[in-house]
């Protein structure tokens, strides 16, 4: 039996220390996913609390067929999308992406360059940001995105490519400043 299973079993039994350890281990990633998908920090904080409650409620159904982090990540994405649907962000996305992409002029975007992908993505419509984050950041396929969002795979692709085109303009200084095979970041040692 793996140690993670021991930890999870104790969490299922209601051991607060085990629950806290799971939260402590995984919240940096889970909360980051929620923050990326939601964008708005206040809403993200509300969603995160509900996501963690759901993860712990669902803990007895975890069978260890995948890593706990992967399993929890799926729940986080699913619950976050549900929360976004409730706030009608997703419902507006199809119309938003069309208006958004067409309306912004190339030159005016250059005057509003974003400092990071997160900042640039916040300038996309909620739907476009969701598709971009799910595909290019979280690694979902278009088929999976279509299932989660209730759209077609073709619709997912269309939104993604428009989102990428806009992000490429917003992040021109970042993308054009990079050279292939050049790592500009200092990476902390791997522990």
């Amino acid at each position, binding site marked *: 039996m793996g140690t993670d299973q021991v930890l999870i*079993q104790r969490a299922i039994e209601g*051991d607060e220390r085990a629950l806290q350890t799971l939260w402590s281990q995984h919240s*940096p990633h889970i*909360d980051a996913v929620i923050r990326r998908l939601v964008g708005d920090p206040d809403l993200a904080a509300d969603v995160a609390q509900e996501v963690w409650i759901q993860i*712990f409620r669902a803990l007895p159904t975890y069978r260890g067929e995948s890593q706990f982090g992967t399993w929890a990540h799926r729940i986080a994405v699913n619950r976050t999308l549900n929360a976004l649907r409730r706030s009608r962000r997703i419902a507006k996305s199809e119309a938003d992406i069309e208006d958004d992409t067409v309306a912004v002029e190339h030159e005016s975007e250059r005057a509003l360059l974003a400092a990071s992908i997160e900042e640039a993505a916040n300038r996309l419509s909620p739907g476009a940001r969701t598709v971009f984050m799910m595909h290019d950041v979280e690694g979902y396929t278009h088929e999976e995105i279509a299932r989660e969002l209730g759209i077609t795979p073709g619709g997912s692709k269309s939104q993604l490519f428009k989102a990428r*085109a806009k992000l*490429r303009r917003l992040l021109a200084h970042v*993308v054009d400043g990079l050279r292939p095979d050049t790592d500009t970041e200092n990476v902390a040692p791997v*522990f």
Partner: protein
Amino acid sequence: MSHLSSERLAELADSQPTIAEAEHLAACATCAAERSAHERLLSLAGDERGRLAPPLTDWSTLSARLRDEGIIATPGDETVEATTAVIPIVAPRRHRRAWLAALRVAAGIVFAAGFGALGRISAGASPAPSGREVASTLERVIGGGVDGGQGLIPSIDQQVAEFGAPFGSVDDAIATLSRSQREYDRAASFIAAHDPTAHSPEARYVFRTRLAALDEMAETSRQALSEAPTDPVLNQYYLSTLGAREVTLRQLGSVLAPGERLSRF
């Protein structure tokens, strides 16, 4: 062939061009550069997945909700039952809980002493505390009873003499232990948040050293658990070490220089 559209170039970041497109890309420096830019954007997006961020939640708020929902077991609560029998139940549940609760305090004591040792290592001192230092640590944690050959844990008579009547029941004692545990966790979080080490120029090196030590402790506990997966003492040490490791990682993340990032945790 005319230039490729921006959306088609975005699509080609992770897909193959048609033959005609490939010929155009080979001849058109502008479109080729744009395709490369989209590939770099895609790479940047992929890097986002590993990026850590400050938590959106805090344990005190979350634990209150979990307690309300019955997900965190309270002393004497028999409603939260395991649905998968991964750990063999070797003792009646109530007794096992009492045993585990007592172990939490014991682990807290030893862990406090352990952190003292880690602090000494970080400061360049000998990791082995003297007997007096151990006694002092224990005294601070459990409130006395370590001198004069009286044993590490005060007897019931000593407790009655010092604190009054003993607990009315095992549940009372467990409830007190649980409260103490929560206080211990709260205090540990507070200390971590106000750790003066974080403001020193050497903070990152101190945290890395601490992290390396905690990794070794976790690995040792993990190996022991592979042979005795239900051992409550080993489990407690392992859980405590993981908790301390995460706190240290967050502290390390807070003192990294601009542009640096934790690649994994």
